[in-house]
């Protein structure tokens, strides 16, 4: 366990710095609150509504579609690097994987995720 000691040291340092700065600044700064200072965003456009709004379900569908291709890339990258070593076995495996993803894509498509209007 002893070679993890530097990590512990970094962790303690990283926790100590913000704590010290925070309490130090509280000790020496003047405290004059007003309405504008206390608002969430002191500068920029005046806030009109809350941040929690209903989002269109389409964003969620787009996210799902993104996930399909994202996962695909995550697996394609290491395969591409090791392509020569994995040879035919790798090719077959990645082929099966891509085929399965294609079925998922077909399902999302058939559910109308690509129809924007």
């Amino acid at each position, binding site marked *: 366990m002893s070679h993890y000691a530097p990590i512990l040291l970094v962790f303690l340092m990283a926790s100590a710095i913000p704590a010290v700065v925070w309490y130090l600044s509280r000790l020496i700064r003047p405290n004059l609150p007003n309405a504008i200072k206390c608002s969430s965003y002191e500068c920029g456009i005046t806030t009109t509504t809350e941040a929690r709004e209903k989002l269109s379900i389409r964003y969620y569908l787009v996210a799902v579609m993104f996930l399909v291709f994202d996962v695909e890339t995550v697996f394609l990258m290491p395969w591409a690097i090791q392509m020569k070593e994995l*040879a*035919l*076995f790798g090719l*077959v495996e990645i082929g099966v994987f891509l085929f*399965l993803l294609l*079925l*998922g894509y*077909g*399902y999302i498509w*058939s559910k109308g995720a690509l129809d924007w209007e």
Partner: protein
Amino acid sequence: MPFAQQLWQAMLRDLPLISGPLTLFFAATIMLWPGDLLLPSNKKHIWAPITLGVLAVSAALVANTANGSGFSSMFQVDGFTRGFQLLCTAAAFITVVLSQPQLNALQEQTVEYYALILFSLGGMQLLVGATDLVSVYFSVELMALCIYILVAYLRTQERSIEAGVKYFLLGAFSSGILLYGISLLFAAGGGVTTNLLQLNQKLALATHNNSLLVFAGVLMVLVGFAFKVAAVPFHMWSPDAYEGAPTPITAYLSMAPKAAALAAFLRVFGTGLASVHSDWSAPLGFIAAASMILGNVAALRQQSIKRMLAYSSIAHVGYMLLGVLSKDPLGGARAVWLYLLTYLLMQSGAFAVIIHLQGTGEGERLDDFRGLARRRPMLAFAMMVFMLSLAGIPPLLGFFSKFYLFMLAIQQGQYLLTTIALLTSAVAATYYLGVVNLMYFKEPTGVQLPRLGTALALTVGCTCGLVLVGTCFGPWLLDWAQTITWF
């Protein structure tokens, strides 16, 4: 080309081992796409018989799979695997049958419902045969992810969504703990293997040097599994999920994932962590005792029958953990399997009655059972049989399996836990008999009940008959339990 030959041989050797789950995955995928496109929207109820057919094919394949180990010793087929796989498949079959009245009434027949049941069942079938912590983890996730969605299936009802979200958050949290525990055990074993048998040997050597690491890892894996089987103090999600889920899915939750998770529990702790038995026997004993006491006492005060059954299933898990605690893991596995088999019959029968009383999804209060004996004498009789059997009253089947399980615990010298189990069983009889009391000695509320549908009548009839006469076939049941073996 030698490599292609090797690949071909590996496929011929390994793939038949998972022919059952493969059938499920393949069928479910085809059903989702392009199957669903080809079916007109007013014909969606056809998916139910198709799903039943797929389940039957999968069960036949599972029952005929030869013993063997494959996928780099990640998955193993033996008597244990087959026994629990068949148990889960039967639970899914009953769930699909029980779903029909509600899905038809709410007009919620979709292909996704059936595909999710098939996918989750595939996860369970992989889980009970998993012999590597990594394959255990991904099978658990496959099973759980599908069930989160099924719990939230009635997406127009706030209650159902709430239950799904609660279950999802707590489930994801517990998966994290499980995964962390697995990584600690991996490190404690020298960072070379997650295979259960090899890990067992490594941990036996490691306990002297790294006892704290092993203990932390074992505890975290224990907590992860306790979440999955809903044992106290990790049971919080269970009553809410049970209450909010569509009632057939509640039945599914209380049968299939529980059986699969207990099977994984038995295999991981019985083979993988057997050498560190002293590390987990005391915490697990505490969890078992707490489940029995809290589950039974909390069930006393419930007004909703689904919540009551949720707490009672927590208590039943407490009893079954006695089997996991057994120093003879295989004997424990047999007793738990027998217990789950009888529990499956009683639960599916009781839920069939509840689903009939519910009609379209409302009214699951205990008061709905008032005077059922006068309105529907046969139905009330069947419900009484299920309740008495769940309470473990002889000569019903529930008594038989409970007796076998407690007997094993006594032989193992767990006198304290068995005493708690017996005492809490007496407490349990109070609320089970409370339902009987409501049905037979209270005035009916006067609501006219429709006739029982064929599917529900068949389920209630078969399960009630089996629970009534099952004990006569005790010797055969015990012989059957002897087929639960591993190597």
